């Protein structure tokens, strides 16, 4: 079995968000780039499966659609433990475009892992679109992924509980919290080895772009917090009841 992990290169979760060019573009000045946290957990789970499932998993590949500037993030995925990497050389314009690119590579894999959302534009879209391009089954909001006697077992969250499913291969898993406990941190050896692992660059294919970001806005500034004295808790109840009218 071969596993493909789709990774998105995103701003660190603590980034202060600013826009430029009349609020039409994200200002990347001084931004630290990371592997999207969900993708990092997906990769961690893939490595755990490879370690524990005997010979069942031959190879883990990571793939990212992005320009050359995404390479340090891809190298980090190699340092964490992916066997090889692919960069599809294109600006990730919209989810439809990105999924169409990924589909070209993903058709050679049995298990394709995506994160539930990228923490830049919070699309929650690429994994599902990719599965439809491939005409593979998909399971979304996956919190557990196991291989038992060659059979795939996944748990997913529904709106009001969880379900356990089995699935045929190939398939796409769109993962969320629970898939792995903590992301793996690259070891010194991992970092050294990552330099020698293959990072293949693939040309983009023609694909349509269906949506465009026109402009961005920051949320309106919040009014200052109304402070209530700790000795006067009743006043808080009064404010919530009479002013905010929420209790």
């Amino acid at each position, binding site marked *: 079995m071969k596993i493909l992990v789709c990774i998105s290169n995103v701003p660190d979760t603590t980034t202060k968000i600013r826009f430029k060019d009349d609020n039409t573009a994200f200002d990347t000045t001084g931004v630290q780039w990371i592997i999207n946290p969900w993708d990092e957990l997906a990769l961690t789970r893939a490595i755990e499966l490879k370690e524990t499932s005997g010979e069942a998993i031959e190879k883990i590949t990571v793939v990212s659609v992005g320009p050359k500037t995404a390479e340090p993030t891809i190298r980090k995925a190699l340092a964490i433990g992916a066997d090889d990497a692919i960069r599809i050389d294109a600006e990730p314009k919209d989810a439809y475009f990105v999924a169409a690119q990924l589909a070209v590579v993903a058709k050679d894999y049995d298990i394709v892992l995506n994160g539930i959302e990228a923490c830049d534009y919070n699309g929650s879209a690429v994994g599902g679109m990719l599965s439809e391009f491939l005409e*593979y089954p998909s399971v979304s909001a996956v919190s557990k992924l196991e291989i038992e006697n060659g059979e795939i077992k996944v748990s997913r969250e529904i709106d009001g509980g969880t379900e356990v499913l089995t699935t045929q291969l190939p398939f796409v898993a769109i993962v969320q919290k629970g898939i792995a406990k903590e992301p793996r941190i690259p070891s010194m050896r991992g970092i050294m080895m990552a330099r020698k692992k293959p990072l293949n660059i693939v040309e983009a294919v023609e694909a349509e772009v269906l949506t465009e970001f026109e402009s961005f806005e920051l949320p309106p500034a919040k009014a200052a917090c109304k402070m209530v004295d700790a000795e006067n808790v009743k006043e808080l109840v009064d404010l919530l009841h009479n002013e905010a009218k929420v209790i």
Partner: protein
Amino acid sequence: MSVLVYTENWDGKFKKVSFELVSYANEIAKKLNTETVVVSIGDVAKDELKKLGGYGAVKIINVNDEKLKTLANQPYAKVISQVAEKEDAKVVIFAHNNTGKAVAPRVSVKLKAGLVTGVASLPSNYDPFTVSKKAFTGKAFANVKVNSDVKIITLFQNSFKLIETDNKVNIEDFNVEIADGDFKTKVEQVNKVTGKLLLTDAEIVVSGGRGMKSPENWGPLEELAELLGAATACSRPVSDEEWRSHDEHVGQTGKIIAPNLYFALGISGAIQHLGGVSSSKHIVAINTDKDAPIFEAADYGIVGDVQKILPELNAAIKEMKEAEN
């Protein structure tokens, strides 16, 4: 032409979000001079289906097939796409929840329809079709222009108010073309949460952080939730340390919620935490540290020890409730 809504049922009943979706769709339908059609999948009684008419639906496409009892992304997308084509839908609307996120992207590819997820307001423009979505985990909004003929939106729960109308609604049974071979995943086990208010459905959420100090201290927090008919939540370290169950974890890597009222008790207000709760309409923070970042996100705050304040707060709420009666 139509605006199509997919409404999900739970054991044959619609939740409030379904009515929000229909209200939202109907506002768009009015702007496009067309009508709102709903597709419902599952075993829902006629009386329950008719309720959707109360928010503007004129037609319900009722798909009741034993094979579609549990969510299967691929066949569901197939069915909804078939209905969208049959009804000549120009806009298709889903909830921004686990089901919507699972199915809408697949429908997007089937219909070659531009998808905008995480929407909380009506389109700002219809030609070109432009709608605002949340981005950077609540830290910004992006205005997205959709260039395709058909558009798909996933709408956040609790972001659009209910608008009642009294439409006459037609219910049409629809037999879909699905084969056993379309089902490549199989649900082996379902564990539904019962008897507990779901975090993502709750209008009030009471949440505790590391400042609660130990899992034994949650009694007064649960009492507050009980008093207000609220759901309980927690910060990530609290669920990591297993003081509370994982499904209570809110934030960037947990659940994203937008209740009317959110209590942050002993929570510092880290950016990743706020990512999951900053869309709450009102936030109350109780924290010993007056400089905790949570006070920048909060509407009401008390600087003080949550152990001491919670019992007083509970007593004051009881008193208020008694005075009301």
